[in-house]
């Protein structure tokens, strides 16, 4: 079982919808330990992404993710623009030439994306950033692949791992991003970027699980 272009497009649409639906929530989380714009930023970016990807005529998965990446980079700004741009740029390069994505490819692509985010942003696990949701998701996908579970099962585990990672950011003291300026006061609040990353994994699960 694998996901083709339609599922990949549907994943992008689904992420855009999830971000729009959670715009206030993500912004509120950012208000607590940042500058109250994460939901606004991501929504501005994904709202710009949707018409761009709908207009694509060359139905290539890598090209799709590249378009998402370039659009996020040029519309979001902030930390999340380059970082989510990096995520999608890396997905695009990992999936270059593929017309179908299975558990193995997706596990590799997500792992490479997390690595790219870490190399751009220098965040370690436990620094209270999106890495704390993305890395457990990548590890869950890799483990699922090793165990040979179905794609849909692997996707579900990734979402769950991202969710767990996101919740685990609550007690952490931030060391990267704006929240780090609050020092100890950042503890007790969930990281907004980890939250949007969980939404991304959820969108991937919902869209890819529909692939034949």
């Amino acid at each position: 079982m694998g996901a083709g272009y339609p599922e990949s497009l549907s994943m992008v649409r689904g992420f855009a919808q999830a971000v729009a639906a959670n715009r206030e929530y993500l912004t509120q989380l950012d208000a607590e330990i940042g500058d109250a714009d994460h939901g606004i930023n991501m929504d501005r970016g994904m709202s710009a992404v949707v018409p761009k990807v709908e207009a694509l005529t060359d139905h290539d998965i890598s090209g799709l993710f590249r378009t998402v990446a370039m659009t996020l980079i040029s519309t979001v700004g902030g930390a999340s623009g380059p970082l989510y741009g990096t995520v999608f740029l890396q997905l695009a390069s990992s999936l270059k030439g593929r017309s179908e994505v299975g558990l193995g490819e997706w596990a590799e692509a997500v792992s490479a994306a997390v690595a790219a985010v870490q190399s751009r942003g220098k965040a370690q696990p436990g620094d209270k950033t999106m890495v704390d949701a993305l890395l457990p998701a990548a590890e869950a996908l890799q483990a699922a692949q090793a165990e040979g579970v179905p794609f849909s099962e692997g996707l579900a585990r990734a979402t769950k791992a991202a969710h767990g990672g996101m919740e685990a950011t609550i007690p952490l003291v931030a060391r990267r991003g704006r929240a780090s300026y609050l020092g100890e006061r950042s503890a007790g609040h969930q990281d907004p970027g980890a939250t949007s990353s969980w939404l991304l994994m959820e969108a991937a699960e919902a869209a890819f699980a529909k692939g034949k």
Partner: protein
Amino acid sequence: MKKLINRPEDVVREELEGIAAAHSDRVRVSLDPYYVMRADAPVQGKVAVVSGGGSGHEPMHGGFVGMGMLDAACPGEVFTSPTPDQILAATKAVSGGAGVLHIVKNYTGDILNFEMAADLAKEDGILVEAVVTNDDVAVQDSLYTAGRRGVGVTVLAEKICGAAAEGGRSLSEVAELCRKVNANGRTMGMALTSCTVPAAGKPTFELGEDEMELGIGIHGEPGRERRQLATADEIVEVLATTVVDDLPFKSGDRVLAFVNGMGGTPLIELYVVYRALDRFLKGRGIAIERNLVGPYITSLEMAGTSITLLRLDDELVRLWDAPVNTPGLRWGA
């Protein structure tokens, strides 16, 4: 939310249109992508100085574009770093062949976006150096964190580097000077009230009638510590002590003292703060040789202040005094 705006999503564009209408004698404004540049840019053979960051800090940076200061400024959405394509376009537009200095405030978003832009500009054959300002003593510095924020010193660095570039110095010299300014400057800020990001529609945080935030940045973020409201003298004592002890500034040092308003604090209060700072520094044997009092690096309508000290030497004094002609800072021209 009570603001003199139309739709929240139009604030930055409309502000830029306002700047374009008001200051066409000195600046030109690009609306796609957003940037503000000197009307006479590119100045051939001169190092160009470019900065940028989220909007909501006016007059920084757009108000500091003009002769003797910035060649271009890239405004992001409110409190959101600009995107690489803006920075790239501005960099190209003002590049006069002698290289471009990016003055970047230390925020993850600013760093990442400026980095991407610099990479792209270099691909286009433009010499770019980036210097990161990180003067905020409220934040504990460490290799393992995002480090200190860039705040008030950024304004001073833009003025001083702009003067040096105007004076014909090379890119590496101007960059070195920028690092010197940053190394000799320290800032700490506080807030009496929060502010409201237009798109968010409500205050970023809530503060009680008898509370203040100490160690804030310039993005409406809460500070490092919430405390009982205090008098101006007490507040200055806390801010200035932290600033002075950090560098440290020592007896006999000559400084530029910058009392900044956060946007919602009127000038009358800033002078009360300046008075206290003047007394405090006299007590420490530190001589204020130059000063700047007013709202220059703001956080929308936040009430509060920040205190920046910059250790001066003759070179910095000369460059500070050099003519500057921007909408936000002007003398000698």
